[in-house]
Structure formats: structure tokens, C-alpha cells
């Protein structure tokens, strides 16, 4: 069993699990932090951004000044933003049989995988995941496509040039593989490959393994996955939450008795308690608005925003904010607000019961009804006529590189009365703000990340007791900035196995049993050779030979084997000991015989005669039955 780690981002994972002749991709998250290296895409022509000076090397060489611009001591790429894709070279992605998606944030790289790698398998995800994932992709494509940028910079990516650039561009990894955003067509095509599943539904993969999604409590329709055969069980825990927010609570019991538990998607801000942050959010919002300032909340169109609106619903009256308009601007704002109300079966019990009253499960319906919350697809159109200040605006994208938020940053950045409150934990707020410096508006960082923290993980692991834990390397040591915080890492026995990008892990358990059915008759020979697609059935692997090959057993005594070789005329034999066995080197024939505990390989250069001779010699030492 092997795990191929295609992403180094702990909360945007993309791993491939090879288990019992199936190849399963676990999530395909898209690391969008790469966009922070690019200049924002303004909706309206921004003189400030277009007049930024070009960057030149220390020696004055200005050949990059078209591609790179300087702003307040930082250098940005002046081009369409690009994303850092999961590794595509580590494993042939066309061999992936299925992709399991755990939540809508972890599927943003899906079009890159399904449309450009020869992928022919199936994607499994829950309905809310697909619907909200589609909204997120749609918003992303819309944000980028509506501001077409003629220029595409690639010169700076040259390795020799990149070395000369200032940080963080200099240290950016795998820039050559960075890609532009996909198109809506690719999104639709990718989403058409998804098969919808429900919690606890058992899905058979080729009769070899069974996969089951479980509620993970993090977002609408978010899931953890159980991948099991008759004798082995692998749990894949991605973004999960134990807090009582809107989604169905996490199913922990089903994770018990796992041989391996792959753990990803923990909170990105382990030191910030979501409750405290919500309090901070509300107080700062109230203080700003009271002083006549506007509040900007860069956010995704789904997820935490539902909880924030619910908190504000309870808070605005007590804080005397009833007359302050709340605006939610996103191409998918309307769909997001409506979708949230119809996925009742995926909501927590409390909200589910409301549906039977019948009441809308989320109170933002009432905010909309009473005109306290208004939503618009874009700042063009109706919004500009309704717009009233002071106000609170929720809009994307949280990276501050594209979307309507760019306009508000330019509009409100100059006044210290206004405040931008960062609630999404995915981007460093300081880096996000860098191209807007110098900035007069107040910045508040209230990251709200409801995913598991380390205390909760340690309780979870004690409860479900997996034999082995596998996790990103970031979780096995305290955060670099707080190296003394031993509590901010996974502490379990045996110690967790860690992975990093582009690493292949051999998972530490051996399959001891296999369930087989013995039939009285020999299996019928397949009449037609099956195609390359669903080829992983056990019967498919039987080569086209007329006689069944006998089974072999026993080990090869090296000394006797060498003597036998000498008897057959091989003279220059050299034996090397290796960690796993021996290598017998036939120097003259440029041939290797690798003898290990459970395998023997004969490696010779296109000399079939020689190979067969050597094979027969090897076989003499083994028993047949």
C-alpha cells in the first residue's frame, strides 16, 4: 500500500492511495497562495496600479520591468494570476480510478486533473459539495475572466532569472508548473464526471475495496472517507469540525479500528479560538460602523459567511446596528444563500428541525426579507444605485487579487475610518495587503477556522485508536514561529508518519489475509480481452496462457546458486550483499540477478536466450506445486 503525496499544503491536500490494485485520489485541492505574487486585477481601471514602476535588477537591468512591478518595497508579477497545481509527474494520473472529494474547498483543482491528465475514472462527492464547489469555481472563473488581461508573464519563471528576484518570488516553488485558471467549459466537464453519494453510502470499487463517506462536521456536505477491504481499513480524515456550527455533526465512531488514518485539513490557526474571533469580528465591525466607517469582509461565497451572518443577526440589535446595510456581493451570492436553505438533510439537527416548522434553517433569510442584507452579483448594476454608507460588504476573493474586493480596497483604503476584517484563514493577511500599501484603513485579522485543533485531534485519536497515523509534515512539529508550543503538534503513539509534497510513502502495514473464493471449476477464460478501463478485476490479471503456471516456493541459497552458475559456464561472478538480499553480477554478460526475500529479478540487456537460461537455473532451486 502506497501513498503518493501530490500537494504539500496541509489543508488543500491531494494524495493518491494505491490499495489492493485500486488507485484512489484523495481530494484535489488547489493551492491559490501563488496568486499573492501577482498584482490585483482591478474591476475599474486603477491609475495607482497601472502606474506602478517596473522592477529592475540591482545592476539597473530593466528587462523584466514589463513583467514585474514594484509596490511599497514588494515585487509583483503583472499578469493573469496563476495557481500552483498538485504534482502531475509523480504518478501517471491517467491510472487514477476514482477521486474522493471531502469538501468543496478541496476540489478546486479538479478540472486540471480530470481534463488534462487522461483521467478516465469517476469522482465521488456529496451533493452540497458539488453544488457549492461549482459556485466557488464559477465565482473564480468569473472573477478572472471578466477582467481580461492581455499580458502573460513567463520570463520571470526562467530558473536562472528567478534566482535573481527578491523574496518571495525567489523562493516560490515549481513556478514552471503554475497554471492559469480553467474555463467554465472545463469546470462543467469536470463536474459531469462526479457521481453523487450520501453519508454512509457504501460504494464498491471493482469488488476489491469499498469506500464510504462520513459526515465531517466542517461544511455543508463535507465528508471523511473510509476505504476498506475485508481485512484492512484506511480512514481519510480531511477538514473536520467538532464545533456546533451549521453542518451535520462529525461521525467519529465509524473511524474506529482503522489500520491507517490519513489526517489532513486541521485548523490553520490553532491558536485562535473561533468563538473569540467571532466576538472580535463583531466588536470591530460595530466600532467601525459607529464611527461612520465602512467594513469590508473579504470572504468566500459559502461556509463561514453563513455563521457570520447568523451571529450578526443576533448581534446587530444589541449593538444598535439595525440601520446599517449589509451587502453580499458575488456572482454566486444569490445561489449560495438559497442553496444553504435547501440542503436541510445536510444540516445540524437544530437547523433540520426548523425546516419542519416550517422556517428557513438560516436566519439570513430574515435579514434579506427585512432588507438588512442585500446581495448583488457584482458592484455594477443595481448595487451602485442602492449603495449607502456606512455599510458592511462581504465579497471575494479573500486573496485580494481579483473579484469585487479589489475595487473596495482601492475605494476605502485611503480612509482610516474604514476597516477590512479578514476572516478566511487561507491567506496571510499581510501578504494579501502588500500591493495596497500604503494603506490608511484599519486591518483586523480574525481568522475563523472551525476545523479540528490539536487538542481535539488528540482526543479523537485516543478515541478511534488507529494503528498508524499519516499526516502532512507540518503537523508533526510545532509551528516555526512558536517552536515552544509542543501542544501545537500531533502527539500519538506510534509517532505519526509524515509526508511532504512529491513524496511516496509505503504505508506501514502488511496485508496478511485475503478473502478468496475457491470454485470447483477452473474459471472460464474470458472470451474477449477487456479494454484498458475497468481492468483491475482479479481475473483480468490472468495472462493469456493456456496452462496455468505452477506456484513456486522456497528460497535460493546464494552459494549453491553461484556454483550452479559456474557449472553452466559463467565465470566472472561477483556477489554483493544488499539490505534486502543479494545481487549476483555477471560482469561479462552485463547481467544482474537480484535475489530478495520475496522476489527475484533477472535484468539482462535484451538477451532473451540468456534470461531464459538464467530463469531455468533459478527455478531449479524452487519447489513447484
Amino acid at each position, binding site marked *: 500500500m502506497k501513498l503518493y503525496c501530490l500537494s504539500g499544503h496541509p489543508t488543500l491536500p491531494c494524495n493518491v492511495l494505491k490499495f489492493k490494485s485500486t488507485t484512489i485520489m484523495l481530494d484535489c485541492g488547489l493551492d491559490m497562495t501563488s496568486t499573492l505574487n501577482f498584482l490585483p486585477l482591478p474591476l475599474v481601471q486603477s491609475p495607482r496600479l497601472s502606474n506602478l514602476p517596473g522592477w529592475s535588477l540591482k545592476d539597473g537591468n530593466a528587462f523584466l520591468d514589463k513583467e514585474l512591478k514594484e509596490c511599497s518595497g514588494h515585487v509583483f508579477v503583472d499578469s493573469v494570476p496563476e495557481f500552483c497545481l498538485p504534482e502531475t509527474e509523480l504518478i501517471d494520473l491517467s491510472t487514477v480510478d476514482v477521486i474522493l472529494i471531502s469538501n468543496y474547498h478541496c476540489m478546486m483543482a479538479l478540472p486540471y486533473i480530470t481534463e488534462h491528465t487522461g483521467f478516465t475514472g469517476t469522482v465521488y462527492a456529496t451533493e452540497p459539495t458539488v453544488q457549492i464547489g461549482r459556485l466557488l469555481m464559477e465565482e473564480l472563473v468569473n472573477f478572472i475572466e471578466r477582467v481580461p488581461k492581455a499580458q502573460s508573464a513567463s520570463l520571470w519563471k526562467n530558473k536562472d532569472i528567478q534566482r535573481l528576484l527578491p523574496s518571495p518570488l525567489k523562493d516560490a516553488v515549481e513556478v514552471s508548473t503554475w497554471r492559469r485558471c480553467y474555463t467554465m467549459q472545463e469546470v462543467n466537464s469536470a463536474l459531469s464526471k462526479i457521481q453523487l453519494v450520501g453519508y454512509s453510502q457504501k460504494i464498491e470499487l471493482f469488488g476489491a475495496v469499498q469506500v464510504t463517506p462520513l459526515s465531517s462536521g466542517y461544511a455543508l456536505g463535507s465528508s471523511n472517507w473510509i476505504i476498506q477491504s475485508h481485512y484492512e481499513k484506511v480512514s481519510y480524515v480531511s477538514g473536520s469540525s467538532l464545533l456546533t456550527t451549521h453542518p451535520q455533526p462529525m461521525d467519529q465512531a465509524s473511524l474506529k479500528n482503522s489500520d491507517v488514518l490519513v489526517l489532513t485539513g486541521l485548523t490553520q490557526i490553532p491558536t485562535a479560538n473561533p468563538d473569540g474571533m467571532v466576538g*472580535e469580528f463583531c466588536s470591530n465591525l460595530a466600532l467601525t460602523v459607529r464611527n*461612520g466607517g465602512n467594513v469590508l469582509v473579504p470572504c468566500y461565497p459559502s461556509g463561514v459567511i453563513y455563521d457570520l451572518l447568523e451571529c450578526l443577526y443576533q448581534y446587530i440589535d444589541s449593538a444598535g446596528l439595525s440601520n446599517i446595510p449589509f451587502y453580499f456581493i458575488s456572482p454566486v451570492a444569490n445561489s449560495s444563500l438559497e442553496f444553504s436553505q435547501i440542503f436541510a438533510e445536510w444540516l445540524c439537527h437544530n437547523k433540520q428541525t426548523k425546516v419542519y416548522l416550517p422556517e428557513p434553517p438560516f436566519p439570513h433569510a430574515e435579514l434579506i426579507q427585512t432588507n438588512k442584507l442585500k446581495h448583488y452579483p457584482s458592484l455594477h448594476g443595481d448595487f451602485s444605485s442602492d449603495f449607502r454608507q456606512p455599510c458592511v460588504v462581504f465579497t471575494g476573493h479573500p486573496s485580494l487579487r481579483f473579484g469585487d474586493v479589489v475595487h473596495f480596497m482601492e475605494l476605502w483604503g485611503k480612509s482610516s475610518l474604514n476597516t477590512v476584517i479578514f476572516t478566511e484563514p487561507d491567506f496571510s493577511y499581510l501578504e494579501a495587503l502588500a500591493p495596497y500599501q500604503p494603506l490608511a484603513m484599519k486591518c483586523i485579522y*480574525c481568522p475563523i477556522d472551525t476545523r479540528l485543533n490539536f487538542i481535539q485531534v488528540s482526543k479523537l485519536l485516543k478515541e478511534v485508536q488507529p494503528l498508524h497515523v499519516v499526516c502532512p509534515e507540518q503537523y508533526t512539529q510545532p509551528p516555526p514561529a512558536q517552536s515552544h508550543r509542543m501542544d501545537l503538534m500531533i502527539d500519538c503513539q506510534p509517532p505519526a508518519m509524515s509526508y511532504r509534497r512529491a513524496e511516496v510513502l509505503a504505508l506501514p502495514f502488511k496485508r496478511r489475509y485475503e478473502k478468496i473464493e475457491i470454485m470447483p471449476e477452473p474459471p472460464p477464460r474470458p472470451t474477449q480481452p477487456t479494454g484498458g478501463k475497468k481492468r483491475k478485476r482479479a481475473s483480468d490479471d490472468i495472462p493469456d496462457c493456456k496452462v496455468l503456471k505452477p506456484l513456486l516456493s522456497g528460497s535460493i541459497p546464494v552459494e549453491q546458486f553461484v556454483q550452479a552458475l559456474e557449472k553452466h559456464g559463467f565465470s566472472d561472478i561477483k556477489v554483493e550483499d544488499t539490505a534486502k538480499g543479494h545481487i549476483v553480477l555477471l560482469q561479462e554478460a552485463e547481467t544482474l540477478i537480484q535475489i530478495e526475500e520475496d522476489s527475484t529479478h533477472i535484468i539482462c540487456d535484451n538477451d532473451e536466450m540468456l534470461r531464459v537460461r538464467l530463469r531455468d537455473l533459478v527455478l531449479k532451486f524452487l519447489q513447484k506445486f
Partner: protein
Amino acid sequence: MDPECSQLLPALCSVLADPRQPVADDTCLEKLLDWFKTITEAGSSLLLLQENPCLLGLLCHVLKPQDLSPRVLSFSLRLAGMLAAQEDCFQYLQQGELLPRLFGEAGPLGGAAWTAPSVRSGWIQGLRSLARHPSALCFLADCGAVDTIFSLQGDSSLFVASAAGQLLVHILGLSLQGPAEGHPGLQTGDWPVCAQKIVSHIEESLRSAATPQITQALNVLTTTFGHCHDPWTQVLWGRLSPLVACLLEKDPVPAAHSLVDLLLSVARSPVLSSSSSGLWETLAQTLSHLSPTQAGPLALGILKLQECPQVLRAQAFAVLLQPLTCVLEATAQAPGLLDSLDGTGGASVTVDTLLPSKAACVGLLCRTLAHLELLQPLPQRPSPWPQAPLLGATVTILRLCSGSATPTSDAGGHLCAFLVGCVRVQRAALDFLGTLSQGTGPRELVTQVFAVLLEYLTSPDSSPTVLKKAFQATFRWLQSSPETPGCSDLDPHAHLFLRELLPVLPKRLCSPCWEVRDSGLEFLTQMIGRWGGQAGFRRALLASEVPELTEQLLRDPESYVRASAVAAMGQLSSQGLRVTPASPEHPGGQQKSLLAELLHILSTDSEGFPRRAVMHVFTQWLRDGHADVAGDTERFVARVLQVASQDLDWEVRAQGLELALVFLEQTLGRPSSHCPYAVTPPVAAPPSSLAQALRPLCRVQLFEFAFRALFDCDRPVAQKSCDLLLFLRAQTASYGGPQGSGSVPEVASVEAALQRWQAGDQGQPLGYLEPEVVVAVLRSMDLEGLRGALAESSDRVEKSPQSLLQDVLATVGALGEDEADCY
């Protein structure tokens, strides 16, 4: 016993004796026993029995084999014991062999009823009452009760077990009262048989391997030495102390908590602590043998002792400080701090052994901090008090809890992992930090204290309860910070802190969590009360958004917050710190005066807390001569009294009387004594005549309010009003002479109206009263009588024994009627 009760008693006894009758609930029986107790204490029990033969009948009756409820049996046992407490009555009962039948083997002791814990408890309590005289001791010995008591010490019911232990203590004390008194040298061998038996039992228990038995023995001894300081206790301790010392040699020490209690009880006993030579050694030995958790209470107890050898105190203090020493060690603090905490602790204990797991670490630290907090204000606290290391340790703990400490060692890392985010430790540490503000500390440590407090006040992760404690500790530290010489302003250091604190406060006042808003307002009120008059503070406060936000919180949805906002606004306004925004940014022009706003709250708020707060503020304003009030005091008082009189909350009405009293004192020319520094309003020259003096009171309709309150359905209001009117009457007397008795018909009509009010019909107002009429009414009223009546508890009628007996019978009587209906 009064004749009415005597008449009811036979019926009661027959009800109790009848198993078919449902017995009134336990509380009735308890009340009956209380009543019998008062009777037997006041007079002769023998007489009581003779006058009421039904009682004896009841006692005899319960002994018959029948299905009697355990409650009644228990009641009878206790009653019998109570009666037999007097020796003549005891003899009387003995003649009829009643006592052995009740308390001996033949009684309930051997029967099925014994399985009920209430019967066993009644048996013990009966004996406890009975054991008052030497004859009782003989009786106990004869009927073998002591052995039963021994076995009851391990009873499954904790109440029974504990009562059994106490009974043993009582019997021991009683048996040694006569013979051993005055003979401290008397050996236990010469003690009465009963006492010897008990002592042997205790010895045996102490030698036992079973912890419960050791615990029982230790508890008996603890109670004995705690209650009795006779010389014989010295002999007893002399005999048993070696056995107690033996317990210390076991590992682990059995019944450690009880052992600690016993040793402390011995140490506190004036007889034992002065004489027994080995006590201090035993205590020292115990301190070193017990685990840190168990030793903490012992160390605290030792440090609280008035007299105690210095060496032992030092050792106890070192034990108490051990966990904090560990914290300092693990976080590699400056060695100077460590030395003074380590003291005579001997081998230093490592974090791993002392604070091995999260639960142990949290528990021990909380207890240690609580112990030190108790110790700090005591005069006998260790001296020198290690203020600086304690401050250092507390600040470190708080930092570890918030995750801001950066320990370099592994042990520190573990400690950090245990403590981070732990609310319990945070609360305990903040409480202790507040207590430490009473001492001083090195400058840099005080800076650290303020820094850590600010960190807690700023952190969004501080839980509401932690935040409240942080506010409290902050106020205490600000209060204790030295004032600049020659100026009563805050010291520059505290000022600096305040400058950083004030931006935090608005955020807290906007918190979605009402507890946070509330504690923020409370803190603010305290701050203004203390520094509201000082220029630096005023400037800083006025520059912040705090005053405006506070005013907004008057309309908070949470009533507690509104109440706190009212108090804070009252303070702000008193100090002239209320902002009246007139800028174009705040249209709305004419801002409502605070007085109007508070009156609005008083008359419309649906919750009591904000209305009570308004009354407090108004009273304070009147007392201080607040500008809004001083302009037209009479109108203000009239309006407030009018609103308050209609309030449904009695505390508001009572506070209205307080305000009336302040007004009365001011009007009658007595300067208010409550606030000597307040600016008093220009009091008019003492009015020349009584009528003139009373006229303002009449104008504000103070009398209508007070008379109405006099007949208030809530007793505290009526009492307060009575006091006020009595005070007023005394004041009018000082003006001398029966001035203006008023026209008789008018007085009569007022009196008639008051009588109607008293009867409950308060509909009709009195209208304006002339001072003469008021004086006449006041003089004619029996206010003293009323005060006496009010002083009696309101349930005095219901509590009478007669009523009790009637109640018990009534419940049964109802059943009798049912029965009649059936047949």
C-alpha cells in the same frame, strides 16, 4: 405547653401511632421535634409526660410489632431520647423498662425496621440526646449500645456513619467528664470502662489495614480534639500518637486527608499543642511523606497556626510553594527568583514528578494559588513574604496559559502544553494576582504584571469569566500603584497602561457576549469612581469612545448590562464626563438629557435590575447635589417618588424610601453625612417653623409615598417606611410645641384613608396634605407598635405549634372524610 396544644396532642399521637394513617412529611415531624425540644429545654420533661400521657402511649405503641412507617419510629426514638435527657424523666422511663425496649436488642435494633437508614439515624440521635447524665452511661453499657455504635461507623448511609462517629465522641467526653477532670496525670487504665472500650476500639482501628476503619478512627479523634480541650485529651493523644505516627510509615499513607485533619486539629488544640513534644516532628514528617496534593492543605493549616516553630513554618511554606517553584524552574526564570522561593524545600522536585499530567498539574496549581490567596492577608503569613517570586510565578503561569511564554526547556514545553487555554488556572492565577496587588514588587515585575493583564484584556481568546477576573485584578493593581507625590493623579506608569487599556475597552463594550459587556461596564464604573476627578484620566477617557458607547448600552437587550450601563452613566455624569455630541456627524440635534433617559428607564424598563440601578444613581445624585438635580430638586424628587411608588419591584420602592430619606435630611437642614467630600447643594437656612420645614416634603408628596409604603405587602419596604416616619416624627419633635394640630376633620379623613390602605384598598390617593395634618397624623399613629409587628417574621402565625399540630391533623382528617365517603 399551652392548653390548645395539649388538647390537640392526643389526636396527634393516635394519628402517628396508626399505621394506616399517612404520616405527614418529614419536615412536619422535624418541626414537631423542634417544638418538643424547646418545651423540654424550658421545663420539666417528667411533668410533660405526666400531663400528656398520650406521649408515653405513643412510645409504648411503636414497640408493638406492626407495620409502622420508619419515619414515625425514628421520630419516637428521637423523642424518647429528648425526654430522657433529664435524669428524673430518664428514671421514670426506666421504671417502665421503656428505654431498653426502645434502644436495646429487643427494640427496632433487631427488627426489620432497622434496614431503614432513618430508623438507624433516629436511634443514634435518640441516644445522643439521652446521653447527658451518668445514669445514661450505665444504661448504654448495660444495653450494649456502644458496640452497635462501633458497627454503625461503617454504615452504608453517610449520615448514619457520621452521626455514629459523633456519638462516640460525645460518649467519650461524657464518660470522662467526672472522673478524669482535674487529673491530667490520670492514665487511661484508670478511665471508666466505657471510655476504655472506645479508646481500645480506636486503637484497633488505627492498627487495621483497612483504610475505611483508619479513617473512622481518625475522624473520631479529630472531632474529639476539635471540640474538647479538657486535660484528658492530652492523655488520650499521648497514648494514640505513636499509632498515628505509624501510619506515616506506610506507603502510601492511608486516609491522608483525615490524617491531615487530625494533625491540624491537634495542633490547634491549646492543650495538646503546648504539651505534646512530638507533635511538631510528626507534622514535619507528615509534610515530607504526603504527596504534594495531600500536603497542600496541611501546609496551609500549619501556616495558619498562631503558634508554631519557625522551622516547621518554613518547611510548610516550601511545600506550599513547590508547584510554583517548579513552574519557575521549568521556565528558566532568573535564579534570584528561584532562591527565595526554594527556601528550605530541600531536594527540588521536578515538573515530571510534581506536575505529571494535565489534570494533576491544573488541580495542584489551582489549589496552590487558592491556598496562597487565603494566606496572603493573614497576619501570621510567613515573613518575609516572597512577593517578587510569587509575582514572577503568577505572571509566568498566566503567560503559559495564554501561550505567550516561551519556555526553553522540555519541562517548560510540557507545562505550556498542559496549561495553554486552561480557564481554571487562569481564573485562579488572576485572583491571586489581584491579591498580590496589596504588596509591592520590583519595578520590572510590576511592568510585567500590567503587560500580562493587558494581554488578557486584549486577547480575543479570554473567556468571559477570565476577562472579568482580569478586569478585577487590573483595578486592584491600578489602585495600588503608587501615586505621584504631591498629586493625587495616577502614577505615570499606570497612565501609560491606561492609555493602552482605553482602546481595548470600547471593543469589550461592543462584545457580542453580554457578560463581557457587563464586566467592562463594571470596571469602568469602578475606574470613574476612583479617578474620575483626575485630569489625566479624564482627558484619556474623553478622548476615547467609551462614554458614548456606555450611553448606547443603556438600550442593551440584556437587563444586567443595562443596569451596569445605568450605574456607569450615573458615575460619568456625576464626574461631568458625559459627552454631549453636537457635531454634524450626529444629527438628531437635541439630545435627551440623561435624567430624562434614566427616568424613562425607571418607568418603562421591563426588568428590575436597570430600574434598581436608576434608583441608586438618583439617590447618589441627590446626595451629591448633581447639577441636573440641584436645579429643581423638588420636581425631581416628586417625579421619582411617583414613578417608584408604582414599581412592582420592592427593591425599587425600598430604594425610593432611601431617596426620600436623603431629601428629608437635606430639607430639614441636616447635612448629609454619607459623603463628606461631595458638593452639597446650598441648603436654605434652617426653616423657622415646622410647617415651613415640612412644606417641601408635602409638595413632593413624600408622605403619600411613605404612607403607601408603610402598608406595603413586602415587609422590608414597610419596615423602612416605618423607620423613616419614626425619624421624621423625632425630627418634628425637635421643633418643639404642638404646632398646628391641623383641622380635626381633615386629620380624621386621612386616618380613615390610611385605615383603608392598611386593609388593602390603596386605590384612593391622599392628595396634597398640609404639614399640620401630617404632624397630627404622625403623632396619632402607633408607629412603634407597627414596627414591632413588622419585626416579627411574617410567618409567625403559621409557625405556631398549634398551627403545626392542626396542619398534621388536617392532612389526616381529610383522609378520614374520604374513608367515610367510601363506606
